């Protein structure tokens, strides 16, 4: 099976205290810790496991800049067959639809049986996978938390409310958005990354892909962020400022007063 996985490098929500910059028009991007988007890491692992079961190749692709090569290198170390960077000045400022358009033009260059994305990027909108599927006119399933390969199709489980699962059968080729927790992604160490240091990562631009310039980039973006703000502390917690011991005491009194600690 030929599998394409779309990945994105994001500021890691769990590692960073995200703050506004002085002008208030963006987040403070200096000194942010970046990593591969959490769900995308699970998507790459899932692709590798499927390849190892049924044969084929896994290609990873990202739309971004030079800095984003680091996540592609990481995926090579995980064991993907090929990594491609889609980069062009004309791509910058694209909205979700623009990103999906670029990925669609890339997907059209070869034939993939299965395309995986993450459910959502930390700074994203859970949209690129569904848009890509619609542009390719492939069937789509979101929030996928298990995949079984059958003859010419897949059996997939989707996560729905309350931890329940919705089982679907989906024809190939298709696009799936992968939910966190679907598998246990393998560990990638520095050594693994060093081993793939010299593997070439091709970069393709708008003309290589045949992307129509007025369909991507800032000018084409019909959805734009016009400013960030920190949500108002509507009520906000009463903060305890005592010593650790005093705080622990206060917490236990509060819990006891409400029926805990009997």
């Amino acid at each position, binding site marked *: 099976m030929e599998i394409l996985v779309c990945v994105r490098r994001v*500021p890691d*929500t*769990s590692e*960073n*205290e*995200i*703050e506004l910059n002085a002008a208030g028009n963006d987040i403070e991007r200096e000194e942010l810790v970046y990593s591969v988007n959490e769900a995308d890491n699970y998507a790459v692992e899932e692709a590798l496991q499927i390849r190892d079961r049924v044969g084929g190749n896994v290609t990873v692709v990202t739309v971004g800049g030079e800095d984003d090569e680091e996540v592609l290198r990481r995926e090579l170390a995980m064991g993907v067959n090929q990594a491609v960077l889609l980069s062009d000045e004309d791509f910058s400022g694209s909205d*979700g*639809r623009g990103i999906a358009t670029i990925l669609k033009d890339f997907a059209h260059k070869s034939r993939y049986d299965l395309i995986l994305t993450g*459910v959502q990027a930390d700074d994203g*909108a*859970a*949209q*690129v*996978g*569904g*848009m890509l599927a*619609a*542009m390719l006119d492939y*069937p*789509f399933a*979101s*929030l996928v938390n298990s995949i079984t390969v059958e003859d010419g199709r897949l*059996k997939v*489980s989707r*996560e*729905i409310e*309350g*931890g*329940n699962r*919705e*089982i*679907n*059968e989906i*024809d190939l080729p298709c696009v799936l958005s992968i939910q*966190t*927790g679907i598998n246990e992604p393998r560990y990638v160490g520095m050594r693994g990354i060093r081993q793939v240091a010299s593997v070439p990562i091709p970069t393709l631009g708008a003309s290589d892909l045949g992307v129509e310039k007025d369909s991507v980039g800032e000018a084409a973006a*019909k*959805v*734009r*962020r*016009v400013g*960030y703000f*920190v*949500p108002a502390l*509507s009520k*906000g*917690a009463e*903060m*305890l400022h005592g010593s*650790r011991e005093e*705080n*622990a005491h206060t*917490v236990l009194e*509060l*819990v006891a007063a*409400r029926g*805990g*600690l*009997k």
Partner: protein
Amino acid sequence: MARIFSYIVHRGGVVDDSAAELAAVARRMDPTTPPSAIVTGWGVDLDAACNALLSSYGEVWKVSNEALSYPNAELVRQALVSILPPNSILLVSHDHFGIDLSPGLSIKVNSVFVSDVLGIDGFEGDSLRLVRQEFGGQVSAHVRCDVSSGAVINVRPGAFKPEQVTPTSSVVLDKSSAVGALKARRRYLETIVAEAGDVDITKHNVLVSIGRGLQEKDNVVLAEELAEVLGAAVSCSRPVVDAKWMEKSRQVGSSGKTVKPKVYLACGISGAFQHLAGIKGNPFMIAINKNPKAPIFQVADVGIVDDVLEFLPELTNKAREMRGVAAK
């Protein structure tokens, strides 16, 4: 002014809170027109859903088709493409169904898509200004979108208060004949209900709930020891389950359990909306987090900025003292 519709999902003819919430959003966007709903399905369930919607929507467009008995987003999308008037604005609840349906729909009807909206600033000509959150709620963003060729907008469940404004007149319009044969390349087979697990966190008055801030599986015991002295149960956020530190049955949130404790101790949990969505009944919430800006402090009653790995053992020791149990 573009026409605004709400797409309403129903289960067995019963519509949930999102029906009234989306009606409120439509009224906020266009106060002069009674809101319109679109509902798809089959048989008596569909009729029951249509009737339920007449109390808050002026027009209910119904699409009756046996293939739509189960809300398979792939088929619902095809039906909506056939009936949506050009340039309309469609509101959908941002849940597992909306995530499945909407991004692709926006491509098929050539309109913009805005995801997980929790505020509406209003129109400026052909642009609509909306509010979203990013980075798990750590920052919010104003978003401007060009709605001149319509929009699909996914609205965060619970972000808007439902309004019970009954329209002066209301009508069901049958649009079924506008929908041709539906082509299913994805077929719904069955729903598998979540396993019960060893502890039922929905039955406990006090929950010690842990998040990614606990750092590693070996630290889960810190919460278990505290829970034992408090007579509480340990629950958790999603990453704790994803990393296999705890079973899925312990997860609180939109894709986990809905709990209604009296006291909720959030330990190393950032406070993402999908987590908070599982906490009901307004419990007394105490949050411990090392980041003073963590969103959890906006919703907690009491907050402590500290390292959970240090604070939890302190709490456990103090609790043992208070109960007269000798510290281990």
